[in-house]
């Protein structure tokens, strides 16, 4: 039981991401299929877009864990170990920095504005906050995974030196 929980802690984004995209496929397919039966589920399009925003942010976090984000490592690989370590820190700072800027702006300006204006989506009439909350909520997760991955990289660069 404890093992399972720990696995879930490490793979939380993965499980939720996979569930989300499965649900999106089912929902999207239902929309196409039911249109033939003369029944409209056009409102699902709005739901799909909302899920896309959440999926992007959650999957980004998981992507940092797997080192899936694209970069040009040509120069980096040819640097001495010290340079590689310095670049690893620099990269972590920029990543956390830019995500924090977007998160903070969202939490401090965008979301309070949306609450104040009571802005709602067009067809489902849901508060738009349901969409925008993805950025600060998953942003925390992104930062956590960036720090974990950077720490791992830092350690492995140190080990190889000896």
């Amino acid at each position, binding site marked *: 039981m404890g093992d399972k929980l720990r696995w879930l802690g490490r793979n939380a984004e*993965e499980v939720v*991401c*996979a569930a*989300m*995209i*499965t649900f*999106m*496929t089912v929902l*999207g*397919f239902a*929309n*196409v299929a039911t249109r033939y039966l003369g029944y409209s589920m056009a409102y699902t*399009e709005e739901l*799909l*877009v*909302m899920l*896309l*925003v959440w*999926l*992007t*942010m*959650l*999957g*980004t976090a*998981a*992507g940092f864990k*797997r080192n*899936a*984000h*694209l*970069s*040009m*490592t*040509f*120069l*980096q690989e040819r640097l001495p170990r010290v340079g590689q370590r310095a*670049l690893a820190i*620099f*990269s972590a700072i*920029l*990543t956390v*920095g*830019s*995500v924090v*800027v*977007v*998160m903070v*702006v*969202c939490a401090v*300006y*965008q979301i309070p504005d949306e609450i104040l204006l009571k802005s709602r989506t067009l067809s489902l009439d849901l508060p738009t906050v349901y*969409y*925008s909350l993805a*950025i600060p909520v998953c942003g925390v997760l992104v930062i956590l995974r960036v720090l974990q991955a950077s720490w791992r990289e830092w350690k492995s660069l140190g080990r190889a030196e000896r």
Partner: protein
Amino acid sequence: MTAVTLLVFGLFLVLVVLGIRIAIALGTTACLIILLYHQGAMGISSIFYSNIAKFPLLAIPFFILAGFVMERSGISGRLVHLASLMVGPIPGGLAIVGIAVCVFFGGISGSGPADAAAIGAVLIPAMIARGYDRGFAAGLIATAGSTAILIPPSIAFVVYGVITEVSVPALFAGGIFPGLVAGAALIVPAYIISKRHGWGGERWGTPRELWEAFKRAFWGLMAPAVILGSMYGGICTPTEAAIIAVVYGIVLGWIYQTIGWRDLYRCMLDAAITSAVVMFIVAFAGLFGWAADRVGAIDHVLKSMLSLSDNGLAMIFIINGVLFIAGMLLDAISIFYVFLPIFIPMMAHFHWDPLWFGVMMTYNLAIGQATPPVAVNLYVTTSLADIKLDRAAVAVIPFVLAMVGGLVVVILWQWLSIAPPVWFGLYKPVH
């Protein structure tokens, strides 16, 4: 104005060369510019967000998922078997099979690396076993796989359509002939090199074998018809066609008993993360484009480029040179967001057709998927061939040159890109 232009593009370039992740290099530059030049920092998150919250972009996760599902379903092996019986004892037989199947699979998959992975996993080990050079095999499948973003469906065309508001189904149709041109161009070096090294072909299949292979590959052969047919039959949007592709692939995997629950979970998970990585670039690249425009950097680059030449054709070749170099350092999606704000006004200035321009640009960026140091397709094929990138970088040169030859054809013969969308009544040329 020059200082800020230099800062925008210079800083971005330096960060990329230092090995900062491309999405982060874009995001850092954008945030820094907006904060330094007081361009409304309160808007940062809503621009970031509005770049991804777009219905047409939903096609991206679904086409990526379709690619993973089709790869697992095992149809690529069946297609390769059928094609090798048809190509027969021509020198470089397996190489030509590889090109043909990659181009065909491009009609199922919308992403270059997915195409290269699906076909390469079957064909690269087979080629090595038959004595082909590992670098040759990796370079060939990397370039042939890049035709997936020209042959419909295509993730690159979805993004180009979202940015420029050119119809995505029309772009899809426009990519068909240029994709075939690329495939045909690749056969030339594949044949010559194989002949020189004596890499022999297979044998013809007997009619009975051909019929058996055809039956085994039948549902795979039907896949492009199902995906494109549902879209061009007016039944559904590109996004929905992508969903149909996913469901078709899962049904195939169920019939062939190749996709179990565990495989399905892996497909879903890999697709979710791969699409998130793409969408994360979209979000920050869109922010970068917005910031660069706000501080006047786009306008400045535009004016400097226009001052280079009044000759439209000369300008097209300059643009293609720039894109080729950019393709070595960046992925296609970032390039669309960084460069299109500059190119869109140029299209109006020189009266270039935006559909043709999109096809041409996508063709150039397809080459970029196989030109190192950043070469998403070559990463896939070098790991399948178990060689270093340095070795594949040399081996890929003849194929890149052949692709460039095809690009010149696409540039000079605009009819290739514009005719099919006009035939299908999807597009009216602007000029």
